């Protein structure tokens, strides 16, 4: 029997992997991929909770669709930024993206 907890464990594992990726990676592309991972972990969580706790309504599922949409838009924008950065500085290492400081 697969209960809500199993979904939540998968979701938490995926989220932690994504978080580790965001924190540990230096490549902008890998960071973006890790963010996607985190967003999808959230999606799993949302859908699971929605179908287990309130199956009559679709609120959680609809929010998951919104998250997917936003994630697509975000990745489009972020990839454009990374592209520009690569054109300008010939690197996508985020250690070099430190112009905006004191």
């Amino acid at each position, binding site marked *: 029997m697969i209960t809500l907890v199993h979904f939540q464990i998968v979701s938490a594992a995926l989220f932690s992997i994504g*978080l580790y990726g*965001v*924190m540990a990676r230096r490549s902008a592309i890998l960071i973006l991929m890790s963010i996607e991972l985190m967003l999808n972990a959230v999606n799993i969580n949302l859908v699971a909770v929605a179908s287990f706790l309130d199956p009559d309504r679709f609120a959680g599922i609809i929010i998951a669709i919104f998250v997917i949409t936003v994630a697509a838009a975000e990745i489009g924008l972020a990839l454009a930024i990374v592209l520009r950065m690569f054109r300008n500085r010939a690197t996508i290492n*985020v250690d070099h*993206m*430190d*112009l*905006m*400081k*004191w």
Partner: protein
Amino acid sequence: MGLMELAWIIPASSFFAFVGIITFGRRIPFVSPMLSIGAIAIGCILVFVVLVGRIKVDPTGIDVFSRKWFEVGGTELMLGMIVDPLSIVMVALVCFVALMVQVYSLSYMKHDPKLAWYYAIHALFATSMLVVVLADNFLLFYVAWELVGLCSYLLIGFWWEKREPVEAAKKAFITTRIADVALLVGILLLFREVGSFSMKETFYQAQLLAAGEVSALSSGTTTVSALLLFIGAMGKSAQIPFHVWLPDAMAGPTPVSALIHAATMVVAGVYLVARTFVVFEAVPDVLLVVSIVGLVTSLLASTMALVNTDLKRILAYSTISHLGLMMLSLGAFGYTAAIFHLVAHGFSKALLFLGAGSVSHASNQTDIRKMGGLIKVMPITAITFGIGALSLGGIPIFAGFWSKDEILISVFNHRNFLFLIGTLFVGFLSALYMARAFYLAFLGDLKNENKAVSESPMLMTGPLIFLAIPSLLFGFSVFGSAEGYGGIGRFIFFENAENFHFNLALGSISVILAVAAFGISKPMYITKTLNFDKIKRYFNGLINVCERGYYFDQVYEWCITRIVLVSSGFIAWLDRAVINDIGVNGPASSVAWTASKLRLHVTGKVYNYALVMVLGSMIIGSVWWIMVSG
């Protein structure tokens, strides 16, 4: 509407001359003297018209013509003039002396490149002095009073390329400014209680106060403001301790000195006291102060005049001394005597200064020890100077004699014996120093270096002669004539008409003293048969003190460098260190310092931000969790 109302044209014409010179003077040089002299000549003629108007209506009345100037809050400020015997006499003196001085300057300043500017200030000077004399309210009076100070500053410092005139001009301006602050406060105090700047209203209230009736003025305020007004007058009239600027003012052109000493500037102070005499009369204690200051001033100044060797400085100290006499006379209720002396002295002093100018113009020196025997080469100057000297020395039939006598009588009537002795001594000293100046400069042997000196041109001797006539004859105006003129005491007086009075004992003492002074001067200074060297030796210290002007300048310098500059240095430090650095810059720099430390967290590294974000979310999450579960 009458002839009297034409009086406004007198200052206005000079003012238009000033505007005209400022506009056209630079392009057309000869137009400036023409405009200025023309304007003041119109003034001279109009004085007579106004005088006729005055006599037709009421010879001794006071008429005020004023229009609304502007309104502030509920206070209407008027722009107007007082036409009474006092102002008419003053206007006549100012116009006449200014005319003489300006004509004289035609020749004296002939080669000066700044001639237009010179005449422009002269015109403005005449305007402002005439407004001072005619003003019917204290505000207008004060404005004109300051303009007089400004013009004298500009004229004393006329040769601003040289250091000395600039210093003298600054000294004159600052010294009188200090006194003017007191004047302004006095005026404002009166305004606060009377509720109007109008002189007529103020005088009315002061009269009520003097009569012991209900008045807007309290006696405390009146005392304080009378004292403050008098301090203002002391500054302009060079009374001790404000006298220091006047001897230095010699640095300006000599005709300017004549104007300042005779008709404008210094007499403004005496005029102020005379004009506001009602206020002073309401508080008689202040009048005692006035007479003490006057007496001390005239005593100190006449001793300084006695030991000085610069012709112009002798005259300057003598002016201070005679201004002191006028103040003394005002303080002793001798209103008529003071104004009479003012006019008599004005004619004589203008004459003496123009004479001194003529001498220095011809011989290029002002030190009387280097002159001598000049009567042989410049007779007109010598004779007119002699008339001025005799008049100032108080020799009978000359103008100065009559007025000095009137002053003596008022002092005798209203003040105690010490004042009388002081006044007689001042009279003796002023005869002595005038005799000394005249003898040393004009009599004796002609020195070789002065052989080539020749008489000044007509334009300079003409005004001398014109000024010598009133110096000689003005005294006779004390006598009445058959045609309704009752002597000067029936024209200018305060409350009660005065007849000419002559006290035989006093008169003879003063005449004997004056004649004696002139008598002993000759053996003392010319033939040297009378020798006081042995006695002098015992008084060397005293003479030295006189020669240094009683160390007033040194004391002031000490005060300024040690007290004023040190304390202002402290205040400047306080301003910089406390107000500026701590009060104003303090908050700003502490914010900047905090920001400089705080901004260090902005590293620009993406993972730092991400870490902070994660940590933040974790903290918020755990707080929320604790709150929900707890």
